[in-house]
């Protein structure tokens, strides 16, 4: 009799079965995880970054299970991440020592170590291919044959720093907190803001960065001082050894954006900077993050905090897409009881409204006559 509630369990089971059956067709081969890893690297990198776990196998499994829904895949990775024992913290990444794959600066025409274009969608004409491209076993080298391959690339901002033209944070934080091991409490320090942004939703950060550029932010122009992508060493100091050892490499994209700061009585005019770092190849994310990091440093540059992109609570509390999509989608859950309470409340208010205004209406009618 009470059909709305009973039978839910069976319906859920069927819904999940439909989900699997809808993508299976005996005529079409299922996609393999190796293919996903090789051919959808940008999806994998985004899932690893926002999922907060550098593991291409897990990311490709999640991508497959989520049927291409990136936010769903990120969620799968995050849930999995919590089941892994955390053994310790790595040493800070040294991104100057890097197996470079791409490095560009938009502020200097030439930089020591050189501009390295690497692979990019930039400058491609966005035309859909109507014919399959041939599989090629040729490999274009990142470098010319006779190039000497450098292993260390100083950051472009070092040159500004040496001329005292870059604001350097006097506060050196050797004990960064860990946002996955404690809840955020505001005001929130820069180390935690950067952690939150690094796993934050790319679309959210992109739109906020865009708003900052478009006038809902500081009136100075951000410049891409440097964007670099490459593999960097991961190092740890195991307790039993007491010295640093390298345990592997990860690919990262690092961005430093600068803009001019006109100075105050205490601080001379110089450049201000913002920092972005993302797993894998993700310049859109890393650039947006750098712009937002700069925006949130308003207090260091005596700027007024008046735009969404500057507001720590606004940015940090809303940038996580696992939290955001969960809370928006929970509105699909039953709300019968709350709705019933609102219904009763509205009916009561309507009754009062009617009593009040019915009386007034009759008075008005009388006066018109």
């Amino acid at each position, binding site marked *: *009799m*009470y059909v*709305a*509630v*009973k039978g*839910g*369990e069976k*319906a*859920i089971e069927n819904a999940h079965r439909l989900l699997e059956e809808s993508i299976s067709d005996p005529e079409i081969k299922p996609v393999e995880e190796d293919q996903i890893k090789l051919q959808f690297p940008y999806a994998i990198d985004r899932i690893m970054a926002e999922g907060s776990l550098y593991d291409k196998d897990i990311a490709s499994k999640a991508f497959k299970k989520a049927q291409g829904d990136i936010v769903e895949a990120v*969620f799968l990775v*995050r*849930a999995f*991440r*919590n*089941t892994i*024992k955390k053994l310790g913290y790595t040493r800070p990444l040294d991104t100057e020592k890097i197996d470079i794959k791409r490095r560009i600066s938009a502020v200097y025409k030439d930089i020591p170590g050189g501009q390295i274009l690497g692979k990019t969608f930039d400058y491609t004409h966005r035309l859909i291919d109507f014919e399959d491209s041939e599989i090629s076993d040729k490999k274009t080298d990142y470098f010319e044959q006779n190039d000497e391959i450098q292993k260390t690339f100083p950051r472009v901002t070092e040159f500004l720093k040496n001329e005292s033209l870059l604001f350097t944070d006097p506060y050196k934080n050797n004990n960064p907190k860990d946002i*996955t*091991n*404690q*809840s*955020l*409490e*505001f*005001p929130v320090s820069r180390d935690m803001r950067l952690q939150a942004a690094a796993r934050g939703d790319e679309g959210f950060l992109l739109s906020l960065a865009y708003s900052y550029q478009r006038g809902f932010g500081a009136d100075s122009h951000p410049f891409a001082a440097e964007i670099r992508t490459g593999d960097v060493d991961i190092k740890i100091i195991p307790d039993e050894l007491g010295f640093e050892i390298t345990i592997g490499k990860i690919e990262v994209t690092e961005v430093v954006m600068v803009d001019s700061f006109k100075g105050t009585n205490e601080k001379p005019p110089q450049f201000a900077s913002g920092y972005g770092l993302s797993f894998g190849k993700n310049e859109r994310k890393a650039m947006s993050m750098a712009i937002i990091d700069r925006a949130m440093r308003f207090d260091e540059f005596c700027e007024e905090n008046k735009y969404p992109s500057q507001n720590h*609570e606004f940015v940090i*509390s809303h940038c996580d897409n*696992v*939290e955001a*999509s*969960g*809370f*928006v*989608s*929970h509105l699909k*859950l*039953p*709300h*019968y*009881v*709350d709705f*019933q*309470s*609102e*219904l*009763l*409340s509205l009916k*009561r*208010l309507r009754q*009062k409204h009617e009593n009040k205004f019915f009386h007034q209406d009759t008075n008005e009618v009388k006066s018109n006559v």
Partner: protein
Amino acid sequence: MYNFAYLDENSKKMIRQSILKAVAIPGFQVPFAGREMPLPYGWGTGGIQLTSSIIGPDDVLKVIDQGSDDTTNAVSIRKFFKKTADIKVTTCTKEATIIQTRHRIPEQKLNENQIVVYQVPIPEPMQFIEPSKEKTEKYHALEEYGSMYVKIYEDIALNSEITTAFDYPVFVNKRYLMSPSPIPRYDNPKMHMAEFLQLFGAGREKRIYAVPPYTQVKSLDFNDYPFFVESFDKKCEICGSSLGFLDEIITDDSGTRMYVCSDSDFCRKNLEINNGTNN
């Protein structure tokens, strides 16, 4: 593959420490390092983390959503614990040692051996007046709740009553203003001097708070506009009881309505008693 009740023991320990602090300061929101669970935020992750941390192999778990054991999310959470902890589950309110709930408090009186775990979407009762946590935390510290009184004053001035229908804020132990979670105001009185421990978990917002047994819980109001609960002038059309919160159900295209108990176990028990007397 996974630890008992999913969470690893270190995470459980961290959550238990937060629970102890919450019980020691009734109504105070304790920040904790919330974990992502395999169920989405907003779907009860706070409650699931609490249950996961307090449940033992001998516990009997009941999960309700909208008062009912059969609603989709309640089924899903119950299955989650059945799978990860292999504990005994029940729909019978009396049998349960832990009751995880969303949006209701059971109609039947609970006892000292039972714990109610509430799923909380927004733990901060002042969030819609002041969205900044940095500020609301200060208001709590200073016991500065003037803005809430202004809000209900405005409500009375406009509507001649306090219109908040659910998630009606309460004072706990005469000190902290607390969100009772989105239960209907109808359920608020059940929290006052309750015999059972009440734990509240907000997973996304990473806050835990508690009302220990036998603690004063007073709904926010004015002396001349006292708190009141909804009354139904109808009876449940299944069990005939007029003692519980009733859901309104539209049964056909012309909008015919029927009223039934929101608490499915309460309704079933009433029916059994009625049938018993008929025999």
